[in-house]
């Protein structure tokens, strides 16, 4: 009679490497959000303005229907400005609950009892939100740019505007990265997506109101550096090579953005711990 060994035998099959641990979290988060029908519908709606613009762009570049509209940096900057609403919606809808949900479910001890690091966890969550932000913010204008390059009758459009593609990508990635870190930091400070959303919307609106008020009182544009919206506008103008109505140096706006990113990263590093220490 064969006697079988019932003692512990470790799995020696293939396992994912350390480098792809964050991807598991990102993929799961993306799949989960895409499975929500309302969110998926919102993502599709976010592309609706780009479809309308695509029609305008096509007629303008091919010269049919008598549409006479200059297609250049300003057109694409306006396209990005239109995407601001979907950007905010995605940040609130998808980003605010990414960490708050885990904190509410006390899931962090479970995560960190698996072979993942804090950096894997943060990178995974970052992957989720940055994916959707890129999808709704720079992707539609970038698609428009590629369409323009494709339908233009000659190479004049590309020769004159080749750098605009990089502007869209650079500005879009910058906003998506800073925005992702910021909403994740807020999410890590709350145990409810709703609270994180209120904090986010409140900070964006409040900072803008406060900055405008301070600018009026001091009769200076410098306080506008406290406004998230104004800093974004200033940076967009600089990256698209357009004159700006916001009277602050673009370097200052970039500095504010970097500061927000650093604060967010610091907050995440401080808040994301497997064990909550109650003092």
């Amino acid at each position, binding site marked *: 009679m064969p006697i079988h060994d*019932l*003692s*512990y*035998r*470790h*799995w020696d*099959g*293939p*396992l*994912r*490497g*350390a480098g792809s*641990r964050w991807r*598991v*979290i990102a993929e*799961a988060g993306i799949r989960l959000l895409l499975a929500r029908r309302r969110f998926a519908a919102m993502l599709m709606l976010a592309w609706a303005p780009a479809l309308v613009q695509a029609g305008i762009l096509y007629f303008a570049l091919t010269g049919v229907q008598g549409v006479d509209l200059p297609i250049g940096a300003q057109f694409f900057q306006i396209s990005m400005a239109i995407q601001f609403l979907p950007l905010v919606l995605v940040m609130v809808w998808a980003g605010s609950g990414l960490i708050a*949900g885990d904190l*509410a*479910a*006390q*899931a962090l*001890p*479970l*995560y*960190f*009892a*698996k*072979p*993942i*690091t804090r950096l*894997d966890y943060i990178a995974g969550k970052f992957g989720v939100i940055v994916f959707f932000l890129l999808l709704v913010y720079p992707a539609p204008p970038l698609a428009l740019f590629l369409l323009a390059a494709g339908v233009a009758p000659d190479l004049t459009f590309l020769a004159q505007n080749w750098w605009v593609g990089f502007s869209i990508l650079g500005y879009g990635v910058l906003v998506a990265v800073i925005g992702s870190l910021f909403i994740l930091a807020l999410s890590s400070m709350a145990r409810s997506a709703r609270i994180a959303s209120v904090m986010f919307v409140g900070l964006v609106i409040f900072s803008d109101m406060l900055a405008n008020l301070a600018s009026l009182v001091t009769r200076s544009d410098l306080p506008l550096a406290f406004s998230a919206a104004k800093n974004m506008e200033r940076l967009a103008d600089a990256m698209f090579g357009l004159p700006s109505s916001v009277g602050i140096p673009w370097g200052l706006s970039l500095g504010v953005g970097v500061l927000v990113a650093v604060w967010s990263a610091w907050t995440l590093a401080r808040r994301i711990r*497997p*064990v909550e*220490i109650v*003092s």
Partner: protein
Amino acid sequence: MSRPVEVSEVSKWYGQVVAVNGMSLGLEPGVTGLLGPNGAGKSTLMKMLTGQIRPSRGRVELLGHVPWNDPDLNRRVGYCPEQDTFYEWMTGRRFVTALLGLAGFERAEARRRAEAALAEVGMTEVGDKKIGGYSKGMRQRIKLAQAIAHDPEVLILDEPVSGLDPVGRRHIIDLVRKWGAQGRTILVSTHILHEVEAMTSAVLLIHHGRLLAEGDVHEIRDLIDEHPRLITMVTPDPRALAARLLTEQDVVSVRFERGSRSITAETVRPDEFYRRLPALVLQEGVEIEEMSSPDDNLQAVFDYLVR
């Protein structure tokens, strides 16, 4: 060969609060019970073992590695946390599969293992129900499923049977015993002593962050010989027996049980007490119908040791 779990002079403090204080212990393969009241430092010790928190002092080793900052070690460790609030909207099957993904398994293998783990804990049929609809027992079992699904060598189970009905408790106790018999090293914490007695005789008693006693239940039992012990006796005349017992120097108290004919005596020299009893019955005609010691329960051992 060193033991799978070694803890040497480990302390952990949060500010001025000491959670674990100079603790040293080692675990052999099999089931070991970690006993202590709430706040004794059980969960802190377990979190140090799983690398979730870093000891303030001392050294923790799991399978020859320091668990802090070594997430790869978690491939060989299963952890069942105490809390049972999870993703309420997630199904049990998806919960286990997702956590297997985090452990590094590809999707197909994760699904296969999740099925096996669900079957192991008897959750196959309710695997597609949302966790929010689970009973306390189901939640405990789904936690155990995720802890065992990646086939770990070491299992750290924090209060796995708390709040369960007798049937559920029996099921989980049987599972833990089975896993222990497979050669895994299992540390099970509880503050209910009869639960751990049903799983193992190897116990660690901790209190106020210190290791109070370790070893077999009987070894611990020997340690308390110097401590007072309770002995309950049923007699037709409890008052007469109480009066007689109180004349002995080793008897420090006698308590009457309301509405019954039994009394409970507390002695500081149990051997002497037991030696004297036959003489009391035979020579002095004291009637004792029944006699038992509540100390047979591990709870009493614990009470004595922390007193």
